[in-house]
């Protein structure tokens, strides 16, 4: 629930003693990041997954992903269909490619929303304090009091499919995707808001803010140009980990049948439709599940590495 990574100590390898001293800040950050071997590996793995869903889409068309052929239903993995076929004879490999696009887009887009809301609430609350802070923080607490999945079910049922499908990047996305993105964003900003508030509270008392105020810089400029850049590091880390959580949340929502509606697939909805074939066709759920696991895992490792690299305390070592 609470981001479990938040207090974890870095896994460091002790290879760094012999390095020449790094000069620039970016170079230091890069060195620190490199020390986190799993993070580097994960960044590579993530690139591979991205290539899988993008280059893969160039090889297989979306029509092919949705083409049904009942005579080829539920075939086990073979050279022709590496991940096998589903009940209606669709190629599972191709569907994981297009489903992966959806899962990743949902993960990224909903984090943008949650960071935006978290930033708005956290910054206002931390910067202005007093009654604004109490109102916004009570609101945040209220939102935290309900488990995300329950809130998600309520919102998903509420919105249903009240929006029209949209076209983007030459693909038609069902409106369910927009709803899912919105809902995940709206139900997961609370930790970001608290984090950003805490940083603003600490930073607004520092001299550079007082100096900016003294020369008459406007509030919104102090918030956006002076304080925000100084709190970017934790936001980046929290956003990275947020993408992993959003992908998982989407999978849960889809698993309950609340997420992406057919014919569009996501990794989560592929898993959902595979449940009846748990025993008969394990390839239907093994591959999408593995892809979710690998993606979420590498994003989590990446976030861990980024935290070590961006944490100012780790530079002194």
């Amino acid at each position, binding site marked *: 629930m609470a981001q479990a990574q938040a207090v974890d100590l870095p896994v460091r390898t002790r290879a760094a003693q012999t390095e020449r001293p790094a000069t620039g800040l970016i170079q230091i950050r890069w060195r620190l990041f490199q020390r986190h071997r799993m993070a580097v590996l994960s960044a590579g793995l993530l690139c591979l997954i991205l290539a899988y869903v993008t280059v893969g889409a160039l090889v297989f068309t979306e029509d092919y992903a949705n083409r049904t052929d009942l005579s080829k239903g539920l075939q086990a993995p073979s050279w022709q269909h590496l991940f096998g076929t589903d009940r209606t004879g669709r190629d599972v490999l191709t569907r994981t490619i297009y489903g992966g696009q959806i899962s990743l887009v949902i993960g990224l887009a909903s984090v943008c929303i949650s960071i935006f809301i978290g930033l708005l609430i956290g910054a206002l609350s931390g910067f202005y304090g007093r009654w604004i802070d109490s109102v916004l923080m*009570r609101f945040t607490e209220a939102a935290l009091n*309900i488990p995300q999945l329950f809130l998600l079910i309520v*919102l998903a049922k509420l919105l249903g499919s009240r929006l029209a499908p949209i076209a983007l990047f030459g693909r038609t996305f069902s409106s369910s995707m927009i709803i899912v993105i919105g809902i995940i964003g709206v139900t997961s900003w609370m930790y970001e808001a608290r984090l950003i508030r805490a940083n603003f509270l600490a930073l607004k008392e520092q001299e550079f803010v007082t100096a900016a105020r003294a020369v008459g810089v406007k509030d919104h400029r102090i918030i956006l140009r002076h304080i925000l850049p100084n709190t970017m590091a934790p936001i980046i880390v929290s956003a990275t980990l947020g993408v992993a959580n959003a992908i998982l949340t989407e999978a849960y929502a889809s698993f309950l049948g609340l997420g992406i509606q057919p014919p569009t697939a996501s990794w989560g909805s592929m898993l959902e439709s595979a449940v009846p074939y748990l025993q008969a066709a394990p390839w239907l759920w093994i591959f999408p599940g593995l892809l979710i696991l690998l993606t979420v895992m590498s994003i989590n490792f990446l976030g861990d590495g980024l935290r070590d690299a961006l944490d100012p305390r780790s530079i002194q070592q």
Partner: protein
Amino acid sequence: MGQYVARRVLQAIPLLLIITFVLFGLIQEMGDPLSFYGGRGRIRPEDRARLMKQLGLDKPMVVRYLVWLKNMAIGNWGNSLSTRQPVAAMIAERLPNTLLLMIASQIVTAALSLFLGIYSALRQYSLFDNFLTTLSLIGYSMPVFWLALVLIYVFGVYFKRWGLPYLPVGGVYDLSVGKTPGQVVWHMVLPVLTLSLPYIAGYTRYIRASMLEVIGQDYVRTARAKGLHEHTILYRHALKNAAIPFVTVMGLDLPFLLGGAIVTESIFAWPGMGRLFWEHAGKSDYPVLMAILLLISVSVVVFQILTDMCYTWLDPRIRYS
């Protein structure tokens, strides 16, 4: 202390009012509570109007909220809109199942993660530690329902195929045997495993991190210098301080468990609170849904206060006034 608790409870009341009001408003629009009244056919418009009046659904949302609030305040949980059963009885039927599952998985989680976290912190950067850190991040990243599918496939399907004693994959007990304690425990194995593994992964990381931080501190060195037994140093001195972040997360997570695990309960056909919520979610059945959500919200507040009390025991420097 009593004053502090009283203040916290008073502070929680407006919070709970806001939460319930917002949720009440959202739930009204979730679906049609009368969709099951017509049986197979469609419900006639005049019947619908009559039923709406009978159930009080024709009144404005705010009025319904106030009526609901008044009833809750006097302990009347109302009847389900769709099944007409009393909500209190429905929850009383489901809550023990959920609690059984949740308490068992929390005990497994706490015990294993404490053990693994401490063990791994004491051997920082060893092969075991690196292995466990990696493994815990993998476990933390795993979708719970996928884990459930894998477990079912291995222990339910494959064990059966190999002629090994296989585990049941759904329900609370075997109908042919009846509800004996042994049966229930046997049926709990897979759901408990599914629920605990991700938590174990998360908590182990917490405990390892806070244990490492505490072990390096001066007072632990002092304890060593005094010649205390290593066991005493670890469990009486270090662990008590290291447990604070752990208690915080537990305090945040525990009340949510009361709501049950919607996904896990669905997969393992476990008749708990999560499934109750899910079954009534599509019908806008607000008496049932609100009762469950209120139960969770209240227990979040209660557990937060309990967590704060726990701090004073773990770290006597923390005082509330």
